Structure formats: C-alpha cells, structure tokens
C-alpha cells in the first residue's frame, strides 16, 4: 500500500525501544517475549494515548454535547476512519467495533448465519481454525440443524485448496477461514478462496486476528464478505476489535445486542434502529481502548507494514534454521506462505515443561493446544510449544532462545 509508494525507513533498534515492557527482566534474565500470537506488547504511543485520554478527554461518546463529549467522540470515531483505511474498507460505515475477533465472529454467527440456516445446510471451515472460528458455528448449527464441514490441510499445514473448492457445494451457506494460523503461521490464499466462494454465491468470512499485525490487509482486494480483527494482537489495547462486512450484509442483519447507542427512536411499541455500524454497538464501548487502537494503527503506519512483513520473514527464516539445529526438535507447519510463528516439540520433552523452564531463562513462549484442538488432533499431539515473533524481536533473542532450549533439553533428557 502506501509504504510501497513511499518506503518508510526502518530502524529496528529504535522501534524496539518504543516498547517499554521489552526492557524488563524476568527471573533475573532479559525478557525474550516470543508470545506475540497470544497478545502483542504495546508501544509507548499507545500507552500514552490511553493515559492521555483518561487524564484529559474522558467522556462518553455519541451523546454529550459538551466539549469532553465532542473530543471523546471525535477520537473514538477517528479510530473507525483509521481502521477503515487500514483494511481498505470502501466505507467507514462498514466497520463495526467489537471487543475482538471472537465477538465479531459471534455477531456474524447469530445475526447473519442463524436466520438463514436450516437443516441440511452447512458451514465450511478448515482444519486449522481457532476455536473462535469453530465454536460459534457449532452453536448456530445446533440451533438450526445445519452442519459443519471441514476442509483438510496437508502435513505441512497448507490448506488443500482443490478440496476446499470441491466442498463448496450448494448446501454451503457460509465459509469461514483463518487468514493466518495462530498455531502454525500458515497464510491462507484468501483471495483465491474468495473467488471460488463468490462464483458460487457463498459468502466468505475471514478470521484476520493474526494477520493484522503482520501483513497489509485489503478487504476489497481479498474479495471476502466479512473480515474480523482484534486490536490487542496489533499492539493496541485488549477488548478492541472490529468486524468489517459488506454494507448489504450489515443492512440485512438484525441487531445482536439491544440497548443504548444503537437506536434512532424508542417507544414501548417500537424501536427504530440506527444505521450500521451503530445498530450493532449497543452500550458504552471500550472508548479509551479504541482511542488507543487508533494510536496503534498510526504506529503501524509509521513503522510500515511492508517493513514489518519483510523483517519478520527474515527473522522467521533465521529462527527456523536455528531451531532445526536443536536435536530431536520437530516443527509443526512449514507452509510456503508463513507468518513468524513456530510451533514445535522436542522428543521426550513435554511442551509445558519446556515453557516453564524457558521462562526461567526469561523466554516467554506459549505451550498448550493454542485454542485449536482439531489442529492438535490432526498432528496427533496433545500440545505444542509455540514461539511467535514480532518486528521488535531480534536475532540475538532467537540465539538466546535456542541456547535456553538446549539447556532445557539437557536437563530433561
């Protein structure tokens, strides 16, 4: 996008210094934060913006005419403009604020899918989905008699596109696919999937939770119908996120939650709802959080999403090579298009023991099923350890991580 036209200079060390938390120690060692797919750290820009909002501008939004109310509303709604631009949405009115991806997908499940589903219908997902892109569909299937279908993946962790397309039969009323896998980092060919869906009249939802902090998102170029993102993985506050949906879908969808903020007129006989996106935003939102998310989007723009992608892909290659040098280490997911996420196990060492012992070395990784039981079942393991990198991580940290892994392996073997 803009970075391609005007390349932004990238000073990695200076960018790392933007994140105050990264300078702390854990268990007497410098922190190596490799749990970015779980949640990302926050730059001072975001922390300062949230702090400043509560110190100087705090008021409720969209209802007060006083100065603070105007300021809060302008800052909050400003994030909608920034987010619309960030994902290249055709219109800011197509961006519905939610508490995150889970909430966004549930909104589509209950407001879009449930009224349309009947027995015999199906929803198509993939083997690599996060529980947030499985369970909401199962719940609406239970209510409607519809069923879930699952598109398979290869052992390398790539979606088998031909099988996905074959499964797009007339019974499929919605397809839901993760853009970037939180467990194995696979970047799915969303535009190709969207074309296949579109030619069959099947709407496509994309879970973009892990994509937003790592690659440029253009919902128009992708050609999907719904795109869900979460703020805390893109360096913004927790409790923020959004659903982008085509206007025709938002207009056809009934409200999900009722309350204030989402109405035009209410009497006891009848309520006239506000237009999208506000009809989906009942109640006082996480105002400071969304103002902080606006700062995070500005920050990503300043760093340059193309810089982020390029740096992370080099770091991923370096980390992949380094991990391959560890005896008995098995990597899960080796897609050709891959974000900087490394799921692994070491023979004879349990992921939980690994994570606890790495923490003693100051290295934060996640261990467990990563909210993706079906993917763990596919690989036949109960759990993996996962190192997920961000642009503020360094080769030196990868080296310390690998040295800590060797130390742990020797201790446990």
């Amino acid at each position, binding site marked *: 996008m803009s970075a391609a036209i005007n390349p932004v200079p990238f000073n990695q060390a200076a960018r790392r210094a933007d994140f105050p938390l990264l300078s702390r120690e854990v268990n007497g060692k410098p922190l190596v934060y490799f749990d970015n797919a779980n949640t990302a750290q926050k730059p001072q820009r975001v922390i300062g913006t949230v702090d400043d909002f509560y110190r100087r501008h705090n008021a409720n939004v969209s209802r007060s005419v006083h100065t603070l109310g105007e300021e809060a509303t302008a800052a909050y709604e400003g994030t909608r403009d920034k987010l619309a631009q960030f994902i290249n949405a055709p219109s800011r009115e197509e961006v519905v604020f939610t508490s995150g991806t889970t909430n966004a997908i549930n909104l589509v499940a209950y407001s879009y899918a449930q009224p349309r589903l009947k027995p015999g219908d199906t929803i198509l997902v993939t083997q690599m989905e996060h529980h947030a892109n499985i369970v909401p569909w199962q719940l609406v299937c239970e209510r409607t008699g519809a069923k879930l279908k699952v598109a398979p993946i290869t052992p390398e962790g790539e979606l088998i596109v031909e099988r996905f397309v074959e499964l797009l039969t007339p019974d499929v009323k919605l397809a839901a696919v993760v853009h970037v896998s939180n467990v194995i980092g696979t970047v799915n060919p969303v535009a190709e999937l969207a074309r296949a869906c579109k030619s069959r009249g099947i709407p496509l939802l994309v879970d973009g939770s892990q994509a937003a902090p790592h690659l440029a998102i253009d919902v128009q170029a992708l050609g999907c119908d719904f795109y869900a993102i979460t703020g805390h993985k893109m360096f913004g506050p927790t409790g923020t996120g959004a659903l982008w949906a085509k206007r025709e879908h938002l207009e056809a969808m009934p409200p999900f939650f009722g309350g204030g903020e989402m109405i035009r007129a209410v009497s006891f006989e009848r309520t006239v709802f506000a237009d999208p996106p506000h009809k989906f935003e009942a109640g006082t939102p996480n105002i400071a959080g969304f103002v902080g998310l606006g700062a995070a989007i500005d920050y990503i723009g300043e760093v340059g999403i193309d810089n982020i992608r390029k740096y992370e892909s080099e770091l991923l290659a370096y980390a992949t090579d380094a991990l391959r040098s560890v005896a008995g280490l098995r990597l899960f997911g080796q897609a050709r298009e891959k974000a900087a996420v490394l799921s692994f196990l070491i023979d004879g060492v349990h992921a*939980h023991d690994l994570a*606890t012992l790495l923490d*003693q070395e100051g290295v934060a990784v996640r261990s467990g099923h990563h909210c993706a039981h079906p993917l763990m079942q596919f690989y036949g393991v109960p759990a993996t350890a996962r190192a997920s990198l961000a642009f503020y991580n360094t080769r030196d940290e990868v080296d310390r991580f690998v040295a800590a892994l060797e130390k742990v392996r020797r201790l446990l073997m």
Partner: protein
Amino acid sequence: MSAADLYRENVLAHNREPRNHGALDAHTHAADGANPLCGDALRFELRVADGHIAALRFSGESCAITIAAASMLSERVTGLDAAAIAALRAQFDALLRGDPCDRDALGELAAFGELVRYPARRQCAQLPWATLTAALNGAASATTEKDSP
C-alpha cells in the same frame, strides 16, 4: 538453572523412570483424568482389597510434573485406605497453597512445594490426585479445571 528447585533430581528421575507405570491386570477401580490446560491425559487403575489399595498403575502422556507426581503418589498411597488418602491429599493441597502442612507425611511429594511459585502448573501435580480420587469414588473420569480458552 533456578528452575532446578522444581525440576530437582528426584522429580526428573521419577519422570524418566516412573514407578508403577502401565496397566494393571484384574483392577477393581479405574478412572481417566484430563488436564484441559494442556490436553494431558492420565489413567489410574487400582486393585482395592479390604478397603485398601493393594496395587495401582498409571499410564498416559503428560508433562514431567504430572508423571513425577503420579509416580511418587503411586508409591506413597499403596496400602492406604480412602480416608488416609483423602487426608494426605488435603496435606498436598495445603503444600501447593503454601499453607502449613505435614511434609514428613508427604515424603517425596513434598518436592512439589516449589509449585507455590508456579500457580499455572499446580494442576499438573493435582491431576494424579484427582484421577486417583475419582477411581476410588467409582467415577469414570476426572478433570483438574475448567477448560482454558
């Protein structure tokens, strides 16, 4: 490594060569335990005679903490009745909370007192107890916690 206090030599030794590991022929009680935090599974099979544990075996894929706890537990509770096991479990839970407890009664299991510093790992050491108790109570399964997200 400072985690050597948790992963101390006897814990590692029990993990490498667990005692009473495997299946138990002609068992009278059995239960499957699960730790939803990590997806670990553990199975206990017991032979109870006159209200006392005559023999027990455990199996399953789990982390070192769970395996070592199950291994030590299996040695410690052999010969005990349900009331004595319940009393011992109360001591073990107190140990994990950092409360006063009878470390002598717990024997090797007192090693897990280090879990005071690792709250997220306590359920790993509690899974064998939960599974054993379920088996004694005639329940088919046990879990240590609500599922994690």
